[in-house]
């Protein structure tokens, strides 16, 4: 069948696209974590102005669609600021900033679900706020966040497909390229869906293993 043949011949090319996709996603998740965790801390422990500004960031990046964010930053703001970022880097950056908004809420929820006594005990031992948060609160909050983080991974993975509108040579762009040459649209796009499905499954499994490794016997928070 022409369809299967087209998929088979395009497979190396598409798998190369998987690499771009994965790196984008991992980069975005990492950026989201690096920004989201401090934002969560700021929202829980910070003063009124800090909380308001973080709230504004979260409201904006959770309320505007990814497609619009990509257009806004890549064609608009980055050009305005004279940043000559490649489509790939720009997309990763935007996905990361967007994910940071969601991740901050995940971590915030986790921090707030911890008993207050944890922080108080640390303070009573003479720890500074910073030390208490970094050595006592965050390790627990991060553990609690792993399931939700795993969910966020699958969301970012799916959002990464939108990046093809900027010309990033990831899975969607490559599939589109092959499809317009071979006219085997249906099989190829279904195959692309399959690739995303597998990537989701692999990632979730890896995170499940991480959760198991990080598990502490008898530890659970209501």
């Amino acid at each position, binding site marked *: 069948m022409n369809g299967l043949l087209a998929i088979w011949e395009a497979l190396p090319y598409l798998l190369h696209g998987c690499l771009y996709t994965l790196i984008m996603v991992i980069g975005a998740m990492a950026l989201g974590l690096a920004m989201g965790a401090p934002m969560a801390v700021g929202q829980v422990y910070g003063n009124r102005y800090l909380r308001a500004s973080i709230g504004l960031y979260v409201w904006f990046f959770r*309320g505007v669609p990814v497609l619009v964010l990509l*257009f806004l930053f890549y064609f608009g703001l980055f050009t305005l600021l004279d940043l000559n970022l490649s489509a790939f880097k720009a997309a990763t950056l935007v996905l990361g900033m967007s994910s940071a908004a969601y991740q901050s809420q995940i971590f915030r929820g986790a921090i707030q679900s911890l008993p207050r006594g944890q922080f108080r005990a640390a303070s009573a031992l003479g720890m500074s706020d910073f030390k208490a948060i970094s050595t006592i609160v965050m390790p627990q909050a991060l553990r609690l966040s792993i399931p939700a983080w795993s969910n966020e991974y699958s969301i970012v993975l*799916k959002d990464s497909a*939108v990046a093809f*509108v900027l010309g990033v040579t990831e899975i969607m762009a490559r599939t*589109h390229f092959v499809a317009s040459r071979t006219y085997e649209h249906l099989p190829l796009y279904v195959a692309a869906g399959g690739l995303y499905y597998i990537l989701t499954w692999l990632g979730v499994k890896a995170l499940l293993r991480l959760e198991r490794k990080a598990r502490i016997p008898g530890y659970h928070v209501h």
Partner: protein
Amino acid sequence: MTEPSFYLDQLIPALNRGLVVSLLLIAPAGSCGLILGIIVGSVRAVGGPVARRLADWYAGIFRGTPLVVQLFVLYFGLPNVGLYLEPYTAAVVGFILCSGAYHSEYIRGGLLSIKRGQRLAAQALGFSSFKTMLWIMIPQAARRALPGCGNEIIYLIKYSSLAYIITCIELTGEGKIIATKYFRFTEVFLVVGLYYLLLVTLATIGLGKLEKKLYIPGFGGARR
């Protein structure tokens, strides 16, 4: 760079045109998607083994793949088998199928979370299976599923922007056209972003009000 006439004469009218299309995408997709989700979610929770597996597959596929791929399959792929959909139709169908899968997850969770005794009591009073579902199970499951389903509608408002990718020109599409024509990406897309923020914020407030209205004491999810 910021002449008012640009905004008032070109941008806003075009965006309003696009907004109408967006709303025409969101309204049917939101309602039909929810209904589909209720049906599929019910099958997944209390259906027979064969039906349940099919429903689980459907939900797994549409939750596990990007919406972009689903839209491409519907718009570019189906012509391969002779089915030609208009951009608008393909977009609405895609949105219904995708959001239906997510709604089914919340409905299923809601139904499964209901204590077994509720069904027993209904049966003991002589309720048929269908009436038990309709008057006892669904009202409770709906309240449990409300936050999740409400959030999915809010997501729908945002991902309606993807209709542009299959050439259905809604809010985002109109913005892209104007921005490209006048080379004013930052301003245009900031305004487009504001449009979406407005929609999303209104929907979030509406959802909060709905949750408060349906609140029943002691029923999971205390509202503060």
